[in-house]
């Protein structure tokens, strides 16, 4: 009898894996909806607004993909995932696309059988402490209690950082950002560590954000990007180029405001190719020629998405920094659209 329990669990895994492997594009089209994995709620990146509609930096990427593939930016089913459930959800086929502040690492790309389609936010792990603590550097945190989201790369970076600097700490594992925030504010931990962008987003939701500071040390590289299952290269190409189109659009000066005007009269052949008035790029990835136009119109180009959700005008207040276009000294560099 006990044996059947084991096989029962294997079954779930077995049946779930059955969904993977098929052509994702066909599945999405047949379903008429894109299943997109996002966080359970991180202001600015993915969180439902007052009307219950998901919005944010990662959400915008999902909407752009839906607009390109299905022609409707609202044809997205958002699936909230935690740091622990996200990979299982993607591997099992429960979601088609994971846009959840996920760090691109070697083992995730290879051993876990995923494909990162690019980087939509260059981040690094930081520490937030209450000002009253009087700490000015992460190296002063010897013996501190640290709140940390489990199942993340930050958990491993944290262990490495403290070991490297030969100081000790006591981890308090938390499941979600909301839980970490609660523990941190209650004083159950001295410092909260996660990606610096996430810390800024979390701090923005505090009652008195001014009482908390981000320490200057950035202890890791965290290239955050959307990912898809390994093995379905067509789907990987589509999503990769939707993201690239958003980045290229900013570089080329295409915005959601001027896109209609540009479609008709542009002398720049690259813009014409991107917007589908020239060439057959859409055909090459199994879509129509206006795919990129729809993607850009969904939530705007990369710069617009950044400014609207997490930019300096928003409560999150992140500077472009590394996430500026390469022409402005940042790391964003879309390959040529041709």
């Amino acid at each position, binding site marked *: 009898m006990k044996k059947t329990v084991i096989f029962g*669990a*294997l079954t779930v895994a077995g049946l779930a894996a059955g969904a993977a492997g098929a052509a994702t594009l066909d599945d999405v089209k047949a379903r008429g909806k894109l299943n997109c994995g996002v966080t359970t709620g991180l202001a600015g990146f993915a969180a439902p607004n007052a009307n219950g509609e998901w919005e944010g930096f990662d959400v915008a990427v999902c909407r752009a993909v839906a607009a390109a593939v299905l022609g409707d930016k609202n044809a997205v089913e958002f699936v909230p995932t935690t740091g622990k459930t996200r990979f299982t959800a993607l591997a099992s086929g429960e979601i088609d696309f994971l846009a959840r502040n996920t760090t691109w690492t070697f083992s995730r790309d290879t051993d876990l059988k995923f494909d990162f389609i690019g980087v939509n936010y260059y981040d690094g792990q930081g520490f937030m402490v209450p000002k009253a603590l009087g700490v000015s550097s992460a190296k002063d*945190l010897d013996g501190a209690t640290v709140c940390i989201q489990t199942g993340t790369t930050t958990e491993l970076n944290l262990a490495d950082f403290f070991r490297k600097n030969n100081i000790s700490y006591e981890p*308090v594992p938390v499941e979600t950002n909301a839980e970490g925030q609660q523990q941190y504010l209650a004083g159950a931990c001295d410092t909260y560590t996660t990606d610096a962008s996430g810390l800024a987003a979390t701090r923005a939701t505090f009652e008195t954000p001014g009482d908390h500071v981000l320490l200057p040390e950035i202890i890791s590289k965290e290239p955050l990007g959307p990912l898809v299952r390994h093995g379905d290269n067509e789907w990987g190409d589509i999503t990769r180029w939707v993201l690239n189109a958003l980045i290229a659009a900013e570089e080329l000066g295409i915005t959601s405001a001027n896109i209609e005007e540009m479609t008709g009269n542009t002398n720049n052949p690259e813009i014409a190719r991107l917007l589908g008035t020239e060439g057959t790029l859409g055909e090459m990835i199994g879509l129509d020629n206006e795919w990129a136009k729809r993607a850009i119109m969904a939530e705007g180009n990369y710069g617009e998405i950044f400014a609207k959700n997490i930019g300096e005008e928003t409560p999150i207040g992140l500077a472009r920094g590394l996430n500026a276009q390469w022409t402005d000294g940042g790391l964003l560099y879309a390959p040529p659209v041709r």
Partner: protein
Amino acid sequence: MTTFSDPPKASFRPSMLLSDTRYRSITFQVIALALLVTAIWYLGSNLAANLRAAGLNISFQFLGNPAGYDINQTLIPYTSQSSNLQAAWVGIINTLLVSFLACVTATIFGVIAGVLRLSNNWLVRKLMAGYVEIFRNIPVLIWILIIYTIMTAAMPAPSAFRGDDPASTMMLGSFAFTNRGVYIPGPVWGPGSMIVMATFVASVIGVFAYRRYATKLLYDTGRLLPMLWPSVAILLLPTIIMFFIMGMPIGLDYPALKGFNFRGGIQIGAPLIALWFALSIYTGAFIAENVRAGIQAVSRGQSEAAAALGLRPGRVMNLVVLPQALRVIIPPLISNYLNITKNSSLAILVGYADITATLGGITLNQTGRAIECVVLLMLFYLVISLGISMVMNVYNNATKLKER
């Protein structure tokens, strides 16, 4: 069943497999077994095929790789460079620790509440009924959260103990109650402390021997020896004398605020306390009902007869009612202990590093070896649960009605 004639002899026809009651049940069992085997085979091969298609394989090599993460409560040596297997051991020991502690306290809560529910005092009776109904009718998950949230929100942070005029002070100068846990003085073992401990263990055995002797004397001769004070004396005196003979080898290490946290002494983390308390108080409510049912299952005639023989009420309970009630209490108590062990897997909710949190949580997540980790987890809980059942069944056999 009425038989009108002799049963037909040795004329087996295939149709009898269904029509004849002698064969029908066997037929159905064979069919059910075949279906079950087919289903398992189908699911297993489906799993294997899908894993192959996804380019994945079942491998337990990850257990030997460095875990890479830190754990806040480790009873055995562990660093972030230890293997995933070591992390799993840390989790197993933490699971066993919280399960054991919760089983003990749940039993104490349950027995007290169960006996008091039958009290003649209206207020006590109703209070205990309220305890049982409130605690067993709210999911344990919510109790764990409530208790942990209250602990972290209501208790002072360690920083409140800092400064010349701190908001909080340590109790008796040696106990600190913070929202990260309780810090108590811990023993420091000096040379010769093993002899003191050995003396203590010998004293414990001595107490049992004395009580056995006293009981035997009572049954043989009817002479009643004093129990309490000699037991206490045997338990403590030799150890204390040995402690001074050896030159006080066991000292106390007091916790003190150093840097961000208290250091020194023994730290009992807030997650452990919250989980322990929530599990005990929740399961205690179930055990209380078992105890009450057990006591009420003993017929009134038994206690009336005992009273008629002149036994005092305390003795009636101890010598007549409880031994008989135990026969009813033990079997459901086993399942309550099993529940505690399995419910302890909710530990990750409050950041307690049990086996589900280490092997089934962080390791699973960082290595992506979901199937392997889940299979190991199931094996662990199965082994532990069967182990508890076995031990408790031995005890059950010792207390159950001896039929001669």
